[in-house]
């Protein structure tokens, strides 16, 4: 009698609660933000390495001998312009204007390309002068930190071209809007990292 009561009580109860509706890709933004935060940690490690090793020139060239602040200022301007043009691409995307979005994305890509070209010119100039990554701990950590940022910009450009092709083929569909928003976060994040680079590496290097 009593046992039957307990079995009846212990009978598992299933709450058929409605799964709360998640639109497809509804959590993509948060997931992508978490990726960016982990990327941020990679850069923190590289900044720490540069901070520790940045003064070890082993009688090689120091930042003052190598850095050209005019070039860095130009580079920073390129990245800043690309940030605002990407912002305009997002605004035109909101209005659903495909051609204008594509145009702003193309302008962003060109600014990104200009940034990369200037950076590669700077690197080749330094290597030509004998300031190779193998020269000193300062140069190893410099090339690792700035090179990693440059690599991110390169992949951002590949992603940008891919998305422009996607938009050209399928238009501003929901999936493409989501992808463009992810790239927007990625692109602006790279700009944030660059603020750290030009302050911590270039400007502080010139002060040393």
């Amino acid at each position, binding site marked *: 009698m009593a046992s039957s009561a307990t079995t009846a009580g212990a009978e598992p109860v299933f709450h058929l609660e409605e799964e709360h509706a998640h639109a497809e890709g509804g959590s993509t*933004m948060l997931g992508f933000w978490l990726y960016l935060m982990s990327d941020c940690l990679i850069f*923190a490690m590289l900044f720490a390495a540069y901070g520790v090793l940045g003064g070890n020139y082993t009688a090689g060239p120091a930042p003052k001998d190598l850095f050209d602040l005019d070039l860095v200022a130009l580079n920073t301007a390129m990245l800043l312009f690309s*940030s605002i043009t990407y912002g305009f691409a997002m605004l035109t995307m909101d209005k659903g204007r495909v051609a204008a979005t594509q145009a702003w994305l193309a302008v962003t890509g060109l600014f990104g390309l200009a940034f990369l070209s200037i950076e590669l010119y700077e690197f080749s100039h330094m290597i030509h002068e004998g300031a190779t990554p193998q020269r000193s701990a300062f140069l190893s950590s410099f090339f690792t930190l700035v090179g990693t940022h440059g690599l991110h910009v390169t992949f951002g450009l590949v992603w940008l071209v891919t998305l422009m092709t996607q938009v050209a083929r399928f238009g501003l569909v929901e999936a493409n809007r989501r992808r463009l928003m992810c790239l927007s976060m990625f692109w*602006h994040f790279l700009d944030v990292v660059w603020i750290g680079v030009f302050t911590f590496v270039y400007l502080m290097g010139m002060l040393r």
Partner: protein
Amino acid sequence: MSAHDHAEDHGHAHGGAAHGSFRGYLIGFVLSVILTAIPFWLVMSGAIDDKQATAIVIMAFAVVQIVVHMVFFLYMNTASEGGWSMLALIFTLILVVIVLTGSLWVMYHLNANMMPGLHDMREMP
């Protein structure tokens, strides 16, 4: 049901990825141009004689500019994704601070104590 779905979508549209406005982007851009130009000018012209002071000032400008970018370009606020974005950001910042200050602090003291000449090697047993 349909009302619930609608509310959910609404929540996502606003809580998930808020969109910037033209004005927001413009304010962010102008601010970051100013916040970039001043540190460059300070270093290039050497307006402040003391290098230590210049370094502290440009670091402060960098921090302000990062906040500007976060707010105006990455639309960071306490409400986005129900606060989870902000929580992840705070957690990351704590780790970043630990990594940076820890590395610099430990390695600075290591360098200072390993400096040749600090301990006279001839007196070593």
